[in-house]
């Protein structure tokens, strides 16, 4: 058998990628359509008084460190803020937070109960803002007053 000098045939072995690309593209499209990039959320925890239980809505005597009441303001998305039966000089949650910080620095117990009550028509954002002001001021024990005798008309 003779071999020709200077001739070395080169063979390229490559896998056929076409079918693999097909499969990968299908999986890629599935993940692209199935993905939802969620916005990271935060939470504000709260706890109901332990006296309340099943069949409860019991009336419990609560002696709060601070009592905050939010009242509707007609024709406005905002609300009137009353703290310990006194209206704030400046009706804002920043002023509420500042007042709470003063109370804490004056020796108020940061684990003391903060009781938030709001009129039914007050926007939920205002209630959360009141809660936010309390947490920012260092008060973590936040509770809500709900009158169990009042039937809430929720359409």
């Amino acid at each position: 058998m003779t071999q020709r000098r200077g001739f070395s045939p080169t063979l390229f072995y490559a896998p056929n990628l076409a079918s693999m690309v097909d499969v990968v593209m299908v999986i890629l499209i599935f993940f692209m359509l199935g993905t939802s990039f969620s916005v990271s959320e935060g939470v504000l925890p709260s706890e109901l008084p332990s006296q309340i239980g099943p069949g409860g809505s019991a009336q419990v005597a609560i002696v709060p460190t601070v009592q905050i009441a939010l009242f509707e303001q007609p024709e406005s998305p905002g609300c009137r803020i009353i703290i310990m039966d006194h209206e704030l000089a400046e009706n804002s949650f920043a002023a509420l937070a500042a007042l709470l910080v003063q109370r804490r620095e004056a020796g108020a117990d940061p684990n003391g109960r903060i009781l938030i009550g709001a009129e039914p028509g007050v926007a939920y954002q205002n209630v959360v803002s009141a809660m936010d002001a309390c947490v920012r001021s260092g008060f973590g024990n936040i509770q809500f007053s709900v009158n169990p005798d009042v039937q809430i008309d929720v359409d």
Partner: protein
Amino acid sequence: MHSPPAPTSVTINLAAMVDVTMCLLIFFMLTTEMVKSENSLIDLPLASAAKRVEKKDLGDRFVINIRDARLSGGSGATYLVQEKETTLAGLLERLQAERSARAEVNCVIRADRGLPYKYVQAVMLGCAKAGVKKITFSALPRGGEAP
């Protein structure tokens, strides 16, 4: 006399495309969360003190979404549990059942920021009646609003 050259098959080199596609695929596989959707699109209230937490840190959570029906041209509120619409009475029954099944159930309330508080209050009252003690309010951890 030379014979004509043998026909050559022309193919596209797919190697680079496969590289890119694989990178994209791995990215989507890692970032996708295949979970049962329990969070509806809600315009959450803002609260700078809201803490970012992992879902597992919320314990035995029971997520209630409350949508302001006025935003979609209706009136009142729409209660949703796992993307399914329910009435307030139905929701309260569900709360009772959840409390019976899981003693330490944590009720996570996600409500639209402009919603009148009475709709949230009704759920809180339901929690109290069902014996659910832990309530968590979802909020976006950004600056709050002045009244």
